């Protein structure tokens, strides 16, 4: 669709952020060298090397856990909640002050469009710290009737936290804010492809005068994560990532007294009934699967549409997809950025090719992809059935599988017919149907006439292979208290 109204490039300046040539580990309030083999982190949009990052080996992890233990024993667990809250408020305010810096760095390292890092990720990150800061001196009210606990809940100790690359800073906030509010100390490992905002967050901890050892950040790949979660000095493991790694973690901590929460994969159904507000449903579908390049565990990757409106809805969806702008993550007009890594791109390609080979109809709007970097066009598959692999496996990319249904009960059956159960969406103007669907869907989050909306006050988590435990809201505190 050629338009005379061509939007000129409107790039956000990257001069606001000062990326160092190399980064160490953040242990006991200081940046220290790692003893593993350092690795490079690149911008997935250009493959440009951004920085060299230290890798933590077992000894480094051990030092970080010990620092966290010391800070827990000597300072943080003894500090009154209202004092802990002050630090969290301070961190939240610094995040707001440095929001543009954080947003630019996140988009550079992750590949997500600046409008998402600027308008979604970073504001919710600050909101999480503000929200849990408010809980720090009210924990007795969070769980007033816990059995055997009276109304004096206590922190667990040292939390080992391993987070994914899709929302590097946001997942950090989901993990660190409730842990600290409850009086725990943390050792956090960011994903190997997106360590930079976590390291900038370490600087923010210094700026906030957070006592040394309360937050420790160890960078590295799977080996570092494994060393961290299986470290005997850890009391709590929190992981967000793939179901495969989640299972390995569950095995690694089995037989220990570590508490575990896992937030894993998903294959969410986004269900559109024939009485839905169709134009807004199209927006919800687009937001559900193309937000953050589809690198969202709760992405609405299966569209279930009632047959009687399927044709009309698909025509609208395709027209809408034609207006999506794919390209430079730092351009303020970019809707879809870069795929995070070559590895992930290969997986998206592989599963899409399988979808085509299995007979589903593949469609993408015409869109020019940049020459360098990792890119995949927004894609939808029609004529998908429950038996197709693209209807069952998590693709974790901008790929939507479209299925149809005839009756509400068929919609429920199909939506629940998956090993996952993280989220679901229901689109209908009928309030009673929303409630009845929400009761029947086995998913941790059910959105009604919206999708991918996040708020610190709202608990988030999965059914079945999507994990266990809840993050966010009052429920999110339970994972960090005993």
């Amino acid at each position: 669709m050629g338009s005379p109204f061509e939007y000129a490039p409107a790039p956000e300046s990257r001069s606001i952020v000062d990326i160092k040539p190399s980064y160490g580990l953040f242990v006991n309030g200081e940046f220290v060298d790692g003893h593993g083999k350092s690795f490079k982190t690149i911008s997935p949009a250009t493959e440009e090397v951004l920085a060299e990052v230290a890798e933590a080996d077992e000894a480094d992890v051990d030092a970080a856990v010990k620092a966290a233990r010391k800070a827990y024993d000597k300072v943080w667990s003894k500090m009154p909640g209202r004092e802990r809250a002050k630090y969290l408020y301070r961190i939240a305010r610094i995040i707001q002050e440095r929001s543009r810096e954080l947003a630019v760095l996140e988009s550079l390292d992750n590949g997500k469009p600046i409008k998402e890092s600027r308008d979604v990720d970073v504001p919710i990150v600050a909101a999480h710290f503000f929200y849990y800061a408010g809980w720090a001196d009210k924990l007795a009210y969070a769980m007033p009737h816990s059995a055997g606990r009276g109304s004096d809940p206590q922190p667990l100790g040292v939390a080992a936290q391993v987070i994914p690359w899709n929302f590097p800073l946001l997942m950090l906030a989901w993990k660190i804010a409730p842990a600290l509010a409850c009086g725990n100390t943390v050792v956090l490992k960011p994903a190997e492809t997106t360590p930079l905002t976590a390291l900038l967050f370490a600087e923010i901890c210094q700026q906030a005068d957070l006592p040394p050892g309360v937050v420790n950040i160890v960078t590295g790949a799977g080996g570092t994560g494994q060393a961290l979660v299986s470290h005997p000095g850890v009391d709590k493991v929190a992981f967000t990532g793939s179901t495969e790694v989640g299972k390995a973690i569950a095995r690694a901590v089995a037989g220990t007294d570590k508490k575990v929460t896992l937030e894993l994969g998903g294959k969410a159904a986004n269900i559109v009934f024939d009485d839905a507000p169709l134009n807004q449903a199209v927006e919800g579908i687009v937001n559900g699967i193309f937000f953050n390049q589809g690198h969202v565990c709760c992405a609405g990757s299966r569209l279930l549409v009632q047959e009687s409106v399927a044709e009309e809805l698909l025509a609208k969806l395709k027209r809408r997809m034609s207006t999506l702008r794919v390209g430079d993550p730092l351009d303020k007009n970019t809707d879809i950025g870069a795929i995070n890594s070559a590895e992930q791109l290969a997986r998206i390609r592989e599963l899409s090719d399988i979808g085509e080979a299995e007979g589903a109809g593949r469609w993408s709007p015409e869109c020019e992809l940049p020459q360098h970097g990792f890119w995949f066009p927004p894609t939808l598959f029609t004529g998908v059935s429950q038996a197709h692999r693209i209807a069952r496996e998590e693709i974790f990319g901008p790929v939507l599988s479209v299925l149809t249904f005839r009756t509400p009960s068929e919609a429920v059956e199909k939506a629940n017919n998956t090993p996952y159960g993280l989220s679901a969406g229901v689109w209908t103007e009928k309030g009673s149907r929303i409630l009845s669907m929400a009761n029947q869907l086995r998913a941790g989050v059910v959105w009604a006439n919206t999708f991918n909306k996040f708020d610190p006050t709202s608990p988030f988590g999965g059914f079945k292979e999507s994990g266990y435990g809840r993050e966010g809201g009052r429920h999110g505190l339970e994972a960090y208290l005993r």
Partner: protein
Amino acid sequence: MTATASNLDLYAEVTRSEASLRRFLHGLPGVDQVGADARAAGLGTRSIKTSAKVYALDLAIRMVDLTTLEGQDTPGKVRALASKAMRPDPADPSCPQVAAVCVYPDMVATAKETLDSSGVHVAAVATAFPSGRAALDIKLADTRDAVEAGADEIDMVIDRGAFLSGRYQQVFDEIVAVKQACARSNGESAHLKVIFETGELQTYDNVRRASWLAMMAGADFIKTSTGKVQPAATLPVTLIMLEAVRDFREQTGTMIGVKPAGGIRTAKDAIKYLVMVNEIAGPDWLDPDWFRFGASTLLNELLMQRTKMTTGRYSGPDYFTLD
């Protein structure tokens, strides 16, 4: 004319009775207010710079219906406004002229005289503007009066009372009748813009229903507001109307224009509307034939931004003519 006639045929079954009309309008997919607001706000974050901004500012100027609708309007005021419409920026001959001058019917002749063959249209607000509270024959006489005086475009108001009490047939019939009254003796017809006064219809569902009602009745343009009621034009309301004209073209092949009016004061706002036109209705609507701004103060804001784009300097309001 032929397109309109065939649309009337196309929807003959729908518009046959009050009951069938109601069934159709209430059967349109609903609008989720939160979602529509979010979509409009999202489009508002587009960043329009350099060459795109130059294009947008000139287009916006060409789309302005320069408006004066005051009890205190005089021939002198209207002549001044008409001069401004033809030469918005006397200092810069490359500045395009606006689309039309919008006045009350009694000022049409005066405006026409000044504008002559400049290409700038004269639009007249008729049908007991702004409330629409008059008998049909008075509304029709008001319309014929303006057409005879030379109005190129008629901006009519719907009977919001009838619409809100569910008398859709009455609203429909009135639009059809006013459309007929727009006919000139030479067989041509003044363009009809139908004003909903969305600030009084209030819900987006109502805006969508009013849009379809007017399009089926033969409107050439659908317009948000009179400018006399707050809120006047808003981005989400315009979004709903742009979706309606887009869907209508898909069904009938006929393009209908959209005119937000009232409350659009800054160049930045105007550009947000153009982004919405581009991405919701599509680039075909990026033309004064299909999209207009009903405004008065907006023009000078656009001119100031335009001058800044060409000279690199931002000058004050004293460097632009009042009217």
